[in-house]
Each structure stands twice: as structure tokens, then as C-alpha cells.
């Protein structure tokens, strides 16, 4: 069975600070990896995804993530956050169709 763990439950940052959210997955075979974001009052939206190829994946709104197979990790990064990045972030994996999500990280960006 797959599982996904996210290292941080709540992160508080100031604007322009850099952000890195940790994610580790457990499945040892071929796996697809995703980061979803949920802004306050909105539904889950895909930030970026990794299926194969270049392990550095660029997504929307300046986010990127790096797949490191040897560490079973898929950490999310953004060099300079904005107040509008305040949201909950979920890492997820699948190897067929059903997504397995981490518990989520709440990111609060102070203006």
C-alpha cells in the first residue's frame, strides 16, 4: 500500500521568504507524484505533477518540486512567497488511479 507523509503541519513565513515543504512517499515501484493546493474557501487545485523524465518539475505560480528517487522524496519549493500563497498544500502519489494524500501542510504568509 502507498502512503505519503508531509513533514510540516503548519508553516508561517513572511512575504519574500523562501518556502520548502517536505514530502516522502512509500511506494517502491513506478509512481506518479502530485502537489495540490487548496486556497481558503476554494477547492483542491493541481500545482504540479511528476510522471517521468526531468526530476525537477515546474508548476504554476512559481512553484517547483524535485523528485529524488533514492530518498523517496518530492519536496515543493518556491523561492519567494507572496501573501496570496497562504493555503493548504497536499502532496499525493498514485501508481494506478487512486490518489494517496499526505495530511497536508498549512502555509500562512504574513504580509
Amino acid at each position, binding site marked *: 500500500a502507498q502512503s505519503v507523509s508531509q513533514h510540516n503541519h503548519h508553516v508561517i513565513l513572511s512575504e519574500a521568504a523562501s518556502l520548502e515543504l517536505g514530502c516522502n512517499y512509500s511506494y517502491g515501484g513506478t509512481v506518479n507524484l502530485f502537489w495540490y493546493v487548496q486556497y481558503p474557501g476554494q477547492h*483542491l487545485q493541481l500545482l504540479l505533477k511528476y*510522471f517521468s523524465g526531468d526530476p525537477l518539475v515546474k508548476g504554476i505560480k512559481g512553484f517547483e518540486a524535485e523528485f529524488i528517487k533514492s530518498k523517496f522524496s518530492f519536496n515543493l519549493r518556491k523561492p519567494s512567497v507572496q501573501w496570496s500563497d497562504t493555503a493548504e498544500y497536499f502532496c499525493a502519489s498514485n501508481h494506478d488511479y*487512486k*490518489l494517496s494524500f499526505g495530511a497536508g501542510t498549512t502555509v500562512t504568509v504574513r504580509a
Partner: protein
Amino acid sequence: GAGVSQTPSNKVTEKGKYVELRCDPISGHTALYWYRQSLGQGPEFLIYFQGTGAADDSGLPNDRFFAVRPEGSVSTLKIQRTERGDSAVYLCASSLSGGGDEQFFGPGTRLTVL
């Protein structure tokens, strides 16, 4: 519509009652998923439809939960004899054809069982 829609957005019911939650996927998407998100947790898989058939219902917690998708489009999640522990946000997602396709999520139905 442009995205996945779910109704109602909120549902409050009493313990022991029956509820139905509806999901309208993106037009043309053959795959439909239900997830449940409890407070402080990520979404958990419940059931996956490919067309009209439930391809995987292994995430349904018990036989009080049932879902249908009779015409391969709209789906209804049905919960019998609701319990307080069923309180959660129920999310629906759809994708073009299943597999590793991107799943597009609806806004969810917040179910509260008193």
C-alpha cells in the same frame, strides 16, 4: 459546466438518517472518484468509477456506504444510518480516462451528523 460540481455544499443530518450526495463531473470525463476528508487530514480514497461501473470500491468504510453512476456521468454517494463519525467533507473528482490522468476536484460536500 466548466468544472466538477457537487450538491449540496453543506448537509446537516441526524444520527441514523439516510443521505445522498451528488457529483456532476466534467463533461466527457469517464473516470470519477469519491474521497473523504476528515478534519486535519488529507483526502482518503473511497471509490473509483470507470464509466458506469465501480472499478474499485475498496475505500468504502463499510456497507452503509454505496455509490452509483447509472449513466456514466452524474454519481450519487449514499450513506445509510449515518453516524457521527461520518462527519467529513466528501470530495468528488473526475479525470479524462483514469490511470494517472490529472484528477479535477469539486468543492466538496460538508456533511455534519449530529
